[in-house]
């Protein structure tokens, strides 16, 4: 069964692709059937992934299976389409198919009655196909192709409710911001192609190891890094992700929390042989990740929109993963990616359940006391938040601990402290959200409060499953199970750190501390938040407005891009076109001037003839004289 599955593993990305084509071309008039085939295809993919995962775990050995065919081939350039199945891929296949499956089931409830129901499932399938193609890629070319296609699916789904101007703008912003990152990524790929003559990961790995031109290698790595910075929304290209919350909430859960935004981290892990080849590049990666982690966590503390809080939390956690990569802890970063996928998807779907019950209310100040009305949503949400806050024995604890451990044991004290600070902030903002939205007095506006009720089973069952995963997923990387995750997903030569009690206890304590702080401020109201805001009004405004980075970018685009555009157009009209018209006018004017010589008078023509004869004779004479001399 395992063997058969492995040989047919290409079915996993191919089935959703066919479903996308089928819905797009024929089935869009039948929403029920569209949803059904979409869910069936992803469920089959999930089954195949599970078989592969179990087979690999049973086999006990890291797997390596590769198939491919040339997709674009000419002498000197080959881009393959293929599948590379190893521990890393299997983990990603499992995460993507599981979360996608749960989100698609959940969407049956959340998107019920939406006029675009069939298109929604078409886009979901497109996303699944592209994401699965991405994680299975065995070369940079294929990676780039699917990298852009997940971007397309993201664009379509952010802008799904395209009648809203905000959704339209958010979709555009996401695509263009990612394009900036992809510009660097593409240049990086071009460099790889001309330096090494191949894009295949397996062939590149030994070549990179032997490559000696460090300066060039650092350049190439940093260019490649631009891709993950865009896709995983790292500073300074993070601006698109909070706005991407305009999409339907299940989309945010799947694409903008669990899977697509993690693709950048995945790319670093997949091509770790090149990213880790130079310490200079690693340093940059760690700094970008660490900075984003702290920066986004700070913003999350000040936001009121439930989805935006989660979005900034995602930014922050992605920063955590990227930082781990930069510290050389590829396994820890991937482990955190895995656990984060489950609990963050859970949190988003929980938020979706709240938003669904409250008829699209997203401001946590207008919630409160939801625990009494929506027990399943509340308690699964709390489990997700505890996991995110890193409370043992939930999933987030183990993975966060691994990252902190590698910072601590690797001697990166600065990053270790930063990690702890972010962990504190994470616990704090999550429980700020929970105490405000789920407990205490109800602040629902108008008639909403009375009719708030728990969401239907299609929505709560996925929540329960994800809550379960958020509890147990950490065990596969925990010391007491022998850390099978680290056995299957690791990079040759990566240093493994033995678990340290001090680190584990500190990280757990810091999470608890964050929760207590949030409890004191938001549940017991021991500190007036209004007073704090007043005291620190300058800082607060700066953070609340996301450090004005969006505004700075907008200003930059308006002045430089649109300004240059207008200047170029001016040049086009007033210089280049003017010259063209001028040459036509001169020709015309010359014609007009010469026209006066043709006045129709025989006498005038006789004069011309005479003049011509004189000139010609003179010329002949002079020429003759010249020759004779």
């Amino acid at each position, binding site marked *: 069964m395992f063997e058969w599955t492995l040989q047919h593993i290409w079915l996993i990305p191919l089935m959703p692709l066919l479903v996308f084509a089928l819905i797009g071309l024929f089935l869009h008039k039948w929403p029920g059937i569209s949803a059904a085939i979409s869910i069936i295809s992803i469920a089959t993919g999930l089954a195949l992934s599970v078989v592969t995962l179990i087979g690999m775990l049973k086999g006990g050995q890291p797997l390596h299976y590769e198939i491919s065919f040339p997709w674009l081939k000419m002498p000197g350039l080959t881009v393959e389409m293929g599948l590379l199945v190893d521990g890393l891929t299997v983990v990603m296949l499992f995460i993507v198919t599981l979360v996608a499956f749960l989100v698609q089931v959940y969407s049956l409830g959340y998107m019920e009655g939406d006029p675009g129901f069939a298109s929604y499932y078409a886009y979901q399938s497109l996303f699944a196909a592209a994401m699965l193609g991405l994680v299975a890629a065995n070369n940079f070319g294929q990676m780039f192709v699917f990298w852009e296609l997940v971007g397309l699916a993201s664009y379509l789904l952010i802008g799904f409710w*395209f009648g809203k101007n905000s959704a*339209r703008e958010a*979709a555009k912003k996401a695509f263009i911001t990612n394009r900036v990152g992809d*510009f660097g990524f593409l240049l990086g790929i071009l460099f790889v192609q*001309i330096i090494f003559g191949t894009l295949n990961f397996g062939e590149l790995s030994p070549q990179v190891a032997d490559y000696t031109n460090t300066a060039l290698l650092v350049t190439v790595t940093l260019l490649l890094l631009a891709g993950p910075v865009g896709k995983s929304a790292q500073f300074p290209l993070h601006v698109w992700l909070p706005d991407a919350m305009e999409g339907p909430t299940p989309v945010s859960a799947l694409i903008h929390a669990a899977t697509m935004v993690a693709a950048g981290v995945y790319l670093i892990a997949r091509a770790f042989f090149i990213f880790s080849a130079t310490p200079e590049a690693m340093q940059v990666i760690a700094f970008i990740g660490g900075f984003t982690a702290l920066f986004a966590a700070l913003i999350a503390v000040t936001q009121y929109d439930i989805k935006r809080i989660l979005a900034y939390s995602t930014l922050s956690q992605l920063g955590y993963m990227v930082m781990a990569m930069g510290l050389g802890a590829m396994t820890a970063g991937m482990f955190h990616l895995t656990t984060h996928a489950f609990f963050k998807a859970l949190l988003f779907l929980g938020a979706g359940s709240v938003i669904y019950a409250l008829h699209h209310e997203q401001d946590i100040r207008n919630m409160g006391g939801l625990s009494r009305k929506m027990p399943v949503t509340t308690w699964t949400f709390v489990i997700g938040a505890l996991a995110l806050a890193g409370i043992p024995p939930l999933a987030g604890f183990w993975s966060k601990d691994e990252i902190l451990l590698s910072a601590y044991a690797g001697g990166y004290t600065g990053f270790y402290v930063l990690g702890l600070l972010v962990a504190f902030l994470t616990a704090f903002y999550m429980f700020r959200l929970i105490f405000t939205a789920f407990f205490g007095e109800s602040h629902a506006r108008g008639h909403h409060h009375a009719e708030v009720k728990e969401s239907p089973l299609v929505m709560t069952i996925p929540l329960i499953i994800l809550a379960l995963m958020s509890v147990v997923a950490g065990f596969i990387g925990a010391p007491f199970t022998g850390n099978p995750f680290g056995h299957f997903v690791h990079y040759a030569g990566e240093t493994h750190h033995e678990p340290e009690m001090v680190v584990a206890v500190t990280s757990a304590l810091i999470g608890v501390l964050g929760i207590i702080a949030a409890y004191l401020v938001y549940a017991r109201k021991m500190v007036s938040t209004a007073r704090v805001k007043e005291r620190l009004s300058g800082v607060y405004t700066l953070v609340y407005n996301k450090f004005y980075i969006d505004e700075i970018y907008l200003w930059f685009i308006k002045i430089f891009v649109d300004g240059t555009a207008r200047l170029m157009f001016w040049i086009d009209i007033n210089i280049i076109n003017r010259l*063209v018209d001028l040459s036509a006018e001169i020709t015309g004017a010359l014609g007009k001037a010469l026209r006066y010589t043709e006045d129709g008078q025989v006498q005038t023509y006789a004069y011309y003839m005479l003049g011509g004869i004189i000139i010609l004779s003179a010329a002949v004479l002079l020429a003759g004289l010249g020759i004779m001399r």
Partner: protein
Amino acid sequence: MAKIPVLTLTLLFPIIGAILIMVLPRERVKEIKYTAAAATLPSLLLSLFIFITYDRKAGGMQFVERINWTPDLGVSYALGVDGISITMLLLTTLIGFSAVFASFRVNEQAKEFFSLLLLLISGVMGTFITTDLFIFFLFYEVVVIPIYILVIMWGSSKRVTKEYAGMKLTIYLLIGSAFLLLGIISLYVKSYLLTGKPSTDLMYLATLDYDVGFQIFVFALMTIGFGTLLSMFPFYSWSPDGYAGAPTAVSMIHAGVLKKIGGYGLIRIGLYLLPAGAQVIAPVIAILAIGNVLYAAFICISQKDLKYIVGYSSVSHMGYVLIGIAALNLISINGAVMMMFGHGVMAALFFALIGNLYEKSHTRNIDDFGGLAHQMPRLATGFMIAGLASLGLPGMVNFIGEFTIFVGAFSQYKVITVLAVSGVIFTALYILRALGTMLFGPRQEKWDGLTDLKGVEMVPLVVLGTAIILGGILPFGLMDIINQGTLELLAQAKLLTIGGI
């Protein structure tokens, strides 16, 4: 055994159609349109047949036909196709077929319109399948006249009048072709002086050794001539005005294929006959090409009229083709040919949709629209396919062209390629801005009367959309045959450097 002259047949069907239309009574508008459609379909099928049955193992010029025309001058009616010309032929017939359907709303003087359109299609096809310089030039000139009449009679006046647009287009291209003619005559005379045998046969001319100075001179002439046709910076200004003024079908054919005669000519005549000249002039082309890519992309950002956006964007995209040609290696030229195909189907689709929308709404200003996807979901899908292709999204054929050009050119010109790659950001910016403003956002009630694409209006979308997507997800189908052609052409010109490594 007399072989069926497949290429001549392909060429002849539209001409027969044009003749039939001329004898049809003027009021039978419907029959005229169906005749035009029926005349372009066989050409499309034949070119698909050629594409499929071309022997990829044997390579070289196939489906060869030759009839001596004026032996004293060495001119013969010689046809033949290799991988490059098949691609361009396929592009022509795909667009020609679609252009007829995109013109189904033309009712004024339909008889003249469709017969001229068919002549135009045949003329363009001829340039791609002939292997004789003289015949090439003849077909090229055949094309110019119908275009002029079509623009000034059926065009539309916005920023500039259609008469201005038609005149600018025609005069500009005639000046370009004057340079070309000078180049061709020089070649003819030079080869006659070298061997004493008059010939305009491309393959024969390619075997001769011209001195480097002569090659530079003639290649420079051709760069101006073909460059003008390909809207090379700064000789592009006919293009946006011309497309804006032209009727839908002419914009489609002009931006889609006619322009590509420039790129095709530079490769087939320029590189093939004058490799040493090409090597000297190429860096100049590469630098000018940056003017195309970035300068025109920036202008697009400031445009509001849909036709001007696509017009300037085609100038921008031709920059990629020029860089591909200028890098002079196998990969980059493969990319340039692929890009010409990709840009052709994409631009034609864009113009078909713009024409359709304009006829229904009488405006092309993007700010007049908003939320059109509510009323016209199919049109919106078409615009999205064309737009995403234009910004080089993988899964669309244009990406294959761009990526291949970038890889090929990067080994030759580092800085220029980096600048060119940055074009992908600006293209995304103007395309998504324009399409976002026009298609998405709140429903506007003033456009509730617009009907979505239906019936024959779907033909351009289906035909060109299929080409864009199939070419994008199965690129090897087209790239293998292009590579075959480029490989042989460069090997014969002794220009074969692989590039990329």
